[in-house]
């Protein structure tokens, strides 16, 4: 019997006359590894925005481990354990990797009320931040400023910040976006090393990553959930492929689709 980490019911979002998310139901159990795929314009990013609190839904509810968070702002949701990473890096560019992660660690630990003790004396917290940095393979750059490191490594820092916040539910928004194919392996290893009891929702276009990482896949099309199932089933389903590739595309690409 699995614990439900995140339950969204009937989420709807309208922009003027355009319904971008229509009556979306999404349930993530603890430890879930769910990928959210769909053609561009399907409404995936909007859904993540609704879940993270950046956008307010027109209808529907969201519950985190049974507690209703529909009215909570993003900061509150973070404090409750619902964390999101960003498709476009939103880091502290002039600060070092270690400092970036430390900001998240110290906020999570609640020590920012301390106006007195020098930060450098907080060895445990700094070690904790450093452990995350090491765990992502960023140790050699730990004191370098974000603005000076490769983009692929910046995406890893995004994940590092998310980890530092000790999430119970993690929304990964296209973590591989912009990473050269050669570096994807590092990202995958980092993702696989994520604590097993975190429920993770991954938006991705790269089917390689989806296949290796996800145990379930949800397909969204035109603002609705089309199907949810195991990756193998979803990816061989004729219906899904026609949605992505169209009939002509299917004929061209045959049975396997590496990229959606």
């Amino acid at each position, binding site marked *: 019997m699995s614990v439900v980490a995140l339950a969204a019911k009937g989420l709807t979002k309208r922009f003027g006359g355009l319904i971008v998310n229509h009556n979306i139901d999404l349930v993530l159990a603890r430890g879930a590894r769910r990928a959210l795929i769909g053609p561009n314009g399907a409404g995936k990013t909007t859904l993540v925005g609704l879940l993270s609190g950046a956008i307010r839904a027109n209808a529907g509810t969201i519950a985190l481990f049974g507690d209703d968070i529909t009215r909570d702002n993003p900061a509150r949701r973070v404090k409750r354990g619902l964390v999101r990473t960003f498709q476009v890096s939103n880091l502290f560019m002039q600060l070092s990797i270690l400092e970036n992660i430390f900001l998240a660690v110290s906020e999570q630990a609640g020590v920012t009320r301390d106006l007195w003790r*020098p930060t450098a004396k907080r060895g445990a917290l*700094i070690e904790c931040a450093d452990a995350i940095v090491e765990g992502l393979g960023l140790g050699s750059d730990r004191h370098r400023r974000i603005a000076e490191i490769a983009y692929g490594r910046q995406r890893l820092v995004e994940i590092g910040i998310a980890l530092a916040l000790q999430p119970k539910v993690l929304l990964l928004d296209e973590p591989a976006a912009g990473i050269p194919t050669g570096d994807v392996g590092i990202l995958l290893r980092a993702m696989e090393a994520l604590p097993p009891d975190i429920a993770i929702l991954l938006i991705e276009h790269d089917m390689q990553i989806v296949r290796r990482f996800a145990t379930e896949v949800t397909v969204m099309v035109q603002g609705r959930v089309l199907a949810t199932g195991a990756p193998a089933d979803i990816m061989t389903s004729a219906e899904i492929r026609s949605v992505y590739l169209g009939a002509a595309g299917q004929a061209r690409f045959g049975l396997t689709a590496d990229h959606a």
Partner: protein
Amino acid sequence: MTLPRESILSRHRIGALEPVWWLLALLVYFVFPKHLAIASSVLIMAMFALSFDVVLGYAGILTLGNAVFFGVGAYAAAWISIAGWHEAITGAFAAAVVSALAAGALGPFVLRLTGLPLIMVTLGIGVIFFEAANKAAWLTGGDDGLSNIVLSPLLGWFRWSLSGGTAYLYVLVWLGLLFALIRRVMASPFGVALQGIRENADRMRLIGAPVLRHLVVSYVISAFVAGIAGALWTQTNAFVGLGVFSLDRAIDGLVMLALGGVGGLYGGLIGAPVYMLLKHFSQEWNPHYWMFLIGGLLIFVVRLGRGGILGVLGRVLSQWLGPRPVS
């Protein structure tokens, strides 16, 4: 692990050259006994600029309104003395508390803004306080100001000499104490969070940081320091007038800080003497050339790039002292 010297996590470290400034400040007492009055006002201005550094250099709040807290502290100190409480130290402290309370009241509203709206609102608040002080002449003495300010000997022992010697040391000690305090606070996890807010306030929110609360705390601390500066102004001049609320003073503080370098805490302490000396000498030369000079200097400092005098010194020194640890 050893943290690099520039890391925001190691702000508590005392630089090797720091004692030099304090030594020089102490030397002034012995070397320029005839100029201690102006020296005191330089120190007070340095304190005022320091208050700017807290909000601007650390929290990234661009405000033109700290003169308000300077003025509130100044008048509060006057009222305290006129009301009969002649003890200087506690008087100054109490006056600064009034400033801090004002900041606590204004902060939660004003600090929701950034950029131009924030500048405008802080400018507007400054103007309102000025006009209010002007109109409430029964309270502030209006144009004439308040002048029957009497202080009992410091710590019951040191008399306030006409030459201003006691006053100078009094101000210097306050400056030292406040500086040490601020340094401590900026090195704490709270100070680190503030700098995070300066770098990317949005992301701090998304990390769950109570951004507005942190900003208000920094604003209150800054107001306290500005309030002490104002109180000391009144105490050392035995007078307070409308000038404490003027826009000039706010701009002065900002300029001094920018000249010296923002964010290093010593920026104000270096910028203030440089600014005041320049002002003094150029006004002797020709009162109008002062504005040319300060305008040109501002443009030059901005064009020169990061860091003001401290920044330039830092670059020069690192040539001399060798490269700093990797940052």
